[in-house]
C-alpha cells in the first residue's frame, strides 16, 4: 500500500494517467446517461459526451507518448467532424420523429418491435 504523501505526489504530478482517468469518467457518465435517459435529445447529448471523452484520449496520447507528428490530433479533428455530422443528422431525425409521432420518448418509438 502506498502512503498518503506518495498518493498526493502522484495526484499532483499531472501526466497521461490523469487524462486517461478523466476520459474514462466522462465516458462512464455518458454511458450511464445513455441507459437512463428517456428523451431522444438527452440520449444524443450523452453520445456527444462519450465522443468527447474519446477525443481527450487521442490528444493526451499524442502529447505524452513519444510521437513524431500530430496524427493523434488529426484523428481527433476527424472525429469532431464526424460527430458534427452525426449530431446534425440525429437532431434532424429527432425533429422529424416529433413531427410525425408527437413524442421524443424513446420508449414510445417501438413500431419496429414485432
Amino acid at each position: 500500500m502506498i502512503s498518503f504523501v506518495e498518493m498526493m505526489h502522484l495526484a499532483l504530478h499531472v501526466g497521461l494517467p490523469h487524462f486517461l482517468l478523466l476520459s474514462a469518467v466522462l465516458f462512464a457518465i455518458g454511458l450511464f446517461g445513455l441507459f437512463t435517459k428517456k428523451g431522444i435529445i438527452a440520449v444524443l447529448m450523452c453520445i456527444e459526451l462519450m465522443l468527447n471523452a474519446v477525443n481527450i484520449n487521442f490528444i493526451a496520447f499524442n502529447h505524452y507518448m513519444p510521437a513524431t507528428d500530430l496524427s493523434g490530433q488529426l484523428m481527433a479533428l476527424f472525429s469532431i467532424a464526424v460527430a458534427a455530422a452525426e449530431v446534425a443528422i440525429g437532431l434532424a431525425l429527432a425533429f422529424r420523429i416529433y413531427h410525425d409521432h408527437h413524442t421524443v420518448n424513446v420508449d414510445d418509438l417501438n413500431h419496429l418491435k414485432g
Partner: protein
Amino acid sequence: MNDLILSLHRLIDMGMTMAEELGTPEIILAAVFYVFAGISVLGALGVVLGRNIVHSALCLTASFIGIGCLYIFLSADFLGAVQFLVYGGAVAILIVMAIMLTRREDMAHSNPSRSIPHQLAALVVAGMFLLAMAAVALMSPFQTAPADIGDTVTGIADLMLTKYVLPFEIVAVLLLIAMIGAIILAKGVDES
C-alpha cells in the same frame, strides 16, 4: 481542539514540503488541470442528473468548454479552438434549437430518467466499465516522453494534405451529405 490545530499545522507543513519538492510550476499545472477537469466532470454530471433539459444543455456546453481548455493544456491549441467553435458554438446552439422545436409541455420535467431499478443497473454497468478502464489506464506501462512537436496548425495542415488526404476528402463529402440529409429530413421532400 489543540490536537485538531496541531494536525492541521502538520498537514500544511507536509503540503509546503511537497510544494518545494515539486517546484511551483508543477503545482500550478496540477491546479489548472483539476479546475478544468472538475468543470468537465461536473458539467457531465449535470447533463445526466438534470431534470430540466435546457439546464442539461447548458451543463453540456460548460463540459465542452472545460474539455477545450484541457486541449489547450495539452498544447493542442488548434484543437482547443475547434472544440470551442464546433462544440461550444455550433453543437450547443443546434441542441438548444432542437429542444425548442420538440417541446410543448413545461420545461421543469423535460428531461425524465428511467425508474430506480433501471438506474441502478445502469450505474452498475457504467461503474464496471469505469473500473475496467481505470485499471487499464493505471496499470499499463506507457512510455511517456512529451515531445515538443512545434506549431500545431502547420503540423496538422501538412499531415492533412499529404498523408491523410483521402480521409480529409471523405470527411468533406460526409459533411456535405450530412448537411443535405439533415435539411431533407427536417424539411421533408416536396412531393409535387
